């Protein structure tokens, strides 16, 4: 099936996909005046000043640290509560199951703009404003439903005979779940981990609403590059390049889970 044409088309697509990314890298290695005055395919006046600024200015690099903290908490929390719930949805009927399942997803359907204010009030009442926990908890609103849906899809692909055989063999539920079932849905867990990471990482409105200084996310720090003299495009591009790095590492580490696929034959 893998014809030369398919390979060529895939390579072409990936190159097109890289063009805007390349342009961001290109911009990040030039100063602002150079970016705005000339078109060059490769930076001629190469400078690393933009990156140096980000790595030496605490108000910049702390943004990355803050984002990584709450994104990691959110990812772990979302996946761990979604795993048992997705199992319940994929294996059993219970009162209200279909309604709850769809209701979960409806939480991704509201336009966020007006919800920012009551969100702020809710977390202010709890005294959690400007903490990593607040953002991590708030992001479960859209990440937990996604995690449940994706995991349920993968779990439903695993025949129930596997569960039944394990129970007959005397496995308790927790032992079956961790030892047998989770390895079978590695692909799904990998995909889910990446998606929850990604959606939390790029979300700006809630993260900005719930933080002021101590837990300020990188995406909010980046909006500061607008100054009286206009936007510092080079600095913004460098910060953009650096926002890709943590997520690229995440997908690199979960790639084996995503690439391995169906593990039934090896049980």
């Amino acid at each position, binding site marked *: 099936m893998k014809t030369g044409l*398919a390979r060529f*088309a*895939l390579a072409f697509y*990936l190159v097109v*996909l890289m*063009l*805007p*990314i390349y*342009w*961001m890298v290109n911009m990040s290695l030039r100063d602002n005046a150079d970016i705005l*005055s000339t*078109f060059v*395919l490769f930076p001629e006046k190469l400078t690393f000043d933009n990156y140096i600024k980000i790595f030496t200015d605490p108000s910049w690099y702390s943004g990355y640290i803050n984002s990584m903290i709450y994104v990691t908490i959110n990812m772990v929390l979302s996946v761990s*509560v*979604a795993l048992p719930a997705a*199992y*319940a*949805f994929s294996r*059993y*009927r219970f*009162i209200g199951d279909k309604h*709850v399942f769809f209701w979960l997803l*409806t*939480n*991704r359907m*509201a*336009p*966020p*703009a*007006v*919800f920012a*204010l*009551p969100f702020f*009030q*809710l977390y202010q009442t709890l005294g959690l404003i400007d903490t990593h926990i607040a953002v991590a*908890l708030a992001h*479960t609103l859209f990440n*937990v439903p996604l995690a449940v849906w*994706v995991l349920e899809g993968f779990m439903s692909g695993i025949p129930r005979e596997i569960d039944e055989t394990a129970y007959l063999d005397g496995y308790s539920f927790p032992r079956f779940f961790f030892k047998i079932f989770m390895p079978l849905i590695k*692909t*799904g867990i990998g*995909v889910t981990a990446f998606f929850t990471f990604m959606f939390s990482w790029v979300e*700006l409105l809630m993260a900005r609403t719930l933080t002021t200084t101590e837990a300020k996310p990188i*995406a909010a720090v*980046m*909006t500061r590059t607008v100054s009286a003299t206009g*936007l510092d495009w080079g600095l*913004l591009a460098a910060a*953009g390049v650096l*926002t*890709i790095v*943590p*997520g*690229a590492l995440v997908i690199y580490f979960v*790639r084996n889970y995503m*690439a*391995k*696929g*169906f593990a039934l*034959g090896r049980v």
Partner: protein
Amino acid sequence: MHKPTNNGAWLLVVPVVLLVAFNAILPLMAVVNYSVQDIFGPGQAYWVGTEWYREVLGDKRLHEALWRQFLFSGMVLLIEIPLGVLIALAMPRKGWAVSLVLVVLALPLLIPWNVIGTIWIIFTRPDIGLMGYSLNSLGIAFDHTASPLDAWITLMLMEVWHWTPLVVLLAYAGLKAIPEAYYQAAAIDGASAWKVFRYIQLPKMRGVLTIAVLLRFMDSFLIYAEPFVLTGGGPGNATTFPSIYLVKVALGQFDLGPAGAFSVIYFLIVLLFSWLFYQVLQNVGRGGAR
């Protein structure tokens, strides 16, 4: 395949429901409150019933924004879903190339949305941007700040560039979950590539494709940051989507009432269409494909 009834399974679902309800219920109630009151300040709110709803529903600019949004989201689904499936089919199944392709695919997804808009401003500039400069060198007059059509093309390109990888990742994970035995059986029967796709791969991908369609519909229907940064809703109102108009109403005019009513209506539209997509996709699989 019927599932056994077991109400004890609720125990596994409770943490999820509590966590999501904690975030969902109070803010939703607050927004519904805004939508039926006229709020002057703390403690000074007056019940106005459906007045804001009538005002919002009669707003011509909202109607236009909604039609624009349906056109946009429709095109997003028609382009991204088939393209995503095709790319997933063309991807290698094993080896080092898989890692490379997966990482490259993930890159656009990982850039904060406001930054994506900003990068595309420069990327499409005719004088200094790679895309704008190349098009102009080819003799194509391209300027998304002046031509509504160019603005739409730019937004669609950006959207397809940004989000097709999500569909690819889902479709690819779905493909990888198909047991090798299915392909072996198909090979023994001498099934063509098309038949393998139609009767094995597509039905097996139904679950992940349902998620892909719903996610792309919901998120594209609520799109805000990218068009706001890139075109600001212009030229004119050509790319003013409901979310952009909503923020204008909510922040520009400090009108929580109409903005609340707007949000509730907006939410219900997304809900209705997501539910329809969900029902259709569930039943499509039950029909022919088995």
